[in-house]
């Protein structure tokens, strides 16, 4: 741990200052951005302003997803409190990514509801969910390979900007000002996440770890209220993992986001998460504080198998 700190400080001098700058930036740019943000929200749904002041609560209840005979999610409930980090864990195939795809509108739910700050997400297409301030990253990198890193981040600003074919084609002064303003903010976010020196490179040419961070930066560029992170440190080495965890913790602290996290790295889950939900074969088998969940016999069974447990026949159907 101390090594991690030293490691971070080794790179730090410039980054520390950049970080604080980013913080100032968030707050400094905020007034206008806040208004823009709330404007966007008001445009897309009729929620009373009191609810917009703080990030909303995500309530998943009875969520069920079936694919032609296979039940990927079965009556799952959990709640992500505003400003908290909530982790979803479970063995491979437990339905974690399916859950993310439903939350972001990529898959349709067969039943149940997902409410976020007063809006029902299950009936909305992905871009409308994005407009509510829900951002996500992907387990497998989903950047536009041929565009520069900066343009990839600028895509995150899509919902906050308005330039269309005509104003972009004719380069109206208004469109150029909008572009410059959002580029400045995107660079701040890039510094915050530590990808600023790669901004000019095509995203597809960057190292894997940088691409993963770029995805996080792109999600943050949406100025989200809820961030869905699908295995943010999968395939990373130790140093990259520590740095990613640090960025996520800082993003949460500085931007006041709610974060929903799918992750296999238990060390990271235990360090970051306030609450954990455990899925197995599409069912929620445990939930609560990380320490408690870690000792839960159902969780241990799901991960290690139940061969030596005298399991009751009624439990047998789910677990191998």
């Amino acid at each position, binding site marked *: 741990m101390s090594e991690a700190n030293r490691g971070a400080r080794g790179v730090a001098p410039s980054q520390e200052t950049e970080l604080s700058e980013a913080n100032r930036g968030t707050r400094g740019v905020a007034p206008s951005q806040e208004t823009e943000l709330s404007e966007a929200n008001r445009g897309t749904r009729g929620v009373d302003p009191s609810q917009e002041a703080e990030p909303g609560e995500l309530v998943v209840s009875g969520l069920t997803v079936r694919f032609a005979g296979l039940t990927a999610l079965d009556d799952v409930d959990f709640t992500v409190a505003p400003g908290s980090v909530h982790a979803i864990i479970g063995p491979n195939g437990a339905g974690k990514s399916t859950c993310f795809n439903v939350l972001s509108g*990529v898959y349709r739910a067969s039943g149940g509801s997902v409410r976020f700050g007063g809006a029902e997400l299950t009936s909305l297409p992905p871009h409308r969910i994005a407009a509510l301030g829900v951002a*996500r990253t992907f387990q497998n990198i989903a*950047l*536009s390979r041929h*565009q520069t890193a900066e343009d990839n981040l*600028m895509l995150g600003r899509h919902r906050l900007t308005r330039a269309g074919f005509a*104003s972009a084609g004719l380069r109206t002064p208004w469109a150029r000002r909008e*572009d410059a303003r959002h580029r400045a903010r995107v660079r701040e976010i890039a510094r915050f996440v*530590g990808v600023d020196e790669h901004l000019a490179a095509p995203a597809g040419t960057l190292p894997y770890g940088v691409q993963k961070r770029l995805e996080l930066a792109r999600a943050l560029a949406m100025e989200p209220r809820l961030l869905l992170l699908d295995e943010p440190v999968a395939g990373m080495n130790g*140093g990259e993992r520590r740095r990613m965890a640090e960025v996520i913790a800082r993003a949460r602290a500085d931007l006041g986001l709610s974060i929903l996290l799918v992750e296999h790295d238990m060390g990271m889950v235990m360090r970051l998460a306030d609450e954990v939900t455990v899925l197995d074969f599409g069912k929620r088998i445990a939930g609560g504080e990380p320490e408690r969940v870690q000792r839960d016999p159902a969780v241990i069974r799901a991960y290690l198998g139940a061969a030596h447990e005298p399991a009751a026949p009624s439990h047998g159907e789910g677990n191998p």
Partner: protein
Amino acid sequence: MSERRTSPRLIGPGRWWLVPVGFAVMLLPPFYLDAFWLQTGLFAMSAAIGAIGLNLLTGSTGQLSMGHAFFLAVGAYGYVYLASSPEDGMTGLGLPTPLAFLGAIVLAGVAGGAFSPIAGRLRGVYLGIASLALIFIGQHVLFNAESVTGGFNGRNVPPLEIFGFSFDDSPGVVVLNVPFGALERLWFLAVALLVPAAWIARGILRGRPGRAMNTIRDHEVAAAVMGVPVARYRAGVFVLSSMYAGAAGALLALAFRRTVPDYFGMFLALDYLAMIVIGGLGSVAGAVAGAVFVSVLPQLLTRFGDDLPMVAAPGSGGVSPAEAARILYGAAVVAVVLFLPRGLAGVWPMLRSAASRRRASRHLTPLEKEEQPA
């Protein structure tokens, strides 16, 4: 780093010399070239406008379209219909010609909009197959709606007239001892259309819509999740690309001075796809380069066919120049796909990035160093 320019300009600071060279290339030919090459240049410029439109759709958004020839036909016949006065069995609106030209572009856009429920929903290759239907519908209508299109024989194209200045062979316009006929005059019209068409497309590609389009091409789900309404964008780009085709078609009609239905068939659609693949998918410069390549090659073969082996006059038994050109640019497509993934337009950046990679490989930043595998 932080001082980088905020909005990309058309010409970089070190490339100022491109401006006079560009002007010379675009404005001097009417003073030096004969009618044959002027005609070729007009085709190339009109094709460039159409190819820019197709490249917005296919190269940048990843939506294949075989129906581009149909929208060119809408533009060409739309102009003729709107500009002609009704006479011997033909109908027409007899609008002022500049208005008819704009009307032709709008008409092509409306036709694209009518197809947009399909264009918005279908992805990539599937749209290509669906849009194939447009060609067959177009050919059927062009041959059979005789009162509008003139049927098999086509229709004469009324010359454009702007504020009393007519783009035809009327005598009396002599600039620097060069008598300006229709071709010379149309040349400047074509330049005046191509430059803004390229400029607008570049602005779109480098701005917010361009980023959304490229991401739809590269990762559709990511685009949607980032807040891009994918279907609406696909439909919008389809309409835009149709309008480019409409402008190209109307210009082509003016250059041909007669529209014939045969021209707007399957081969034209394939020519346009060849243009954007050879030139470079997704870039404006690529579309222009490809359009010039594909339009000029058959003309070159026609002109110099006598000196080339295998190429003979049409009907004399050998390979006709048009066929030879198709074979050649068929080979060009294969060569480009194999060796130049970004087409003709990618040659210069490729050389440049190779040079800068050699420079960059000398030092690594601390961050990258840490990420090197131990």
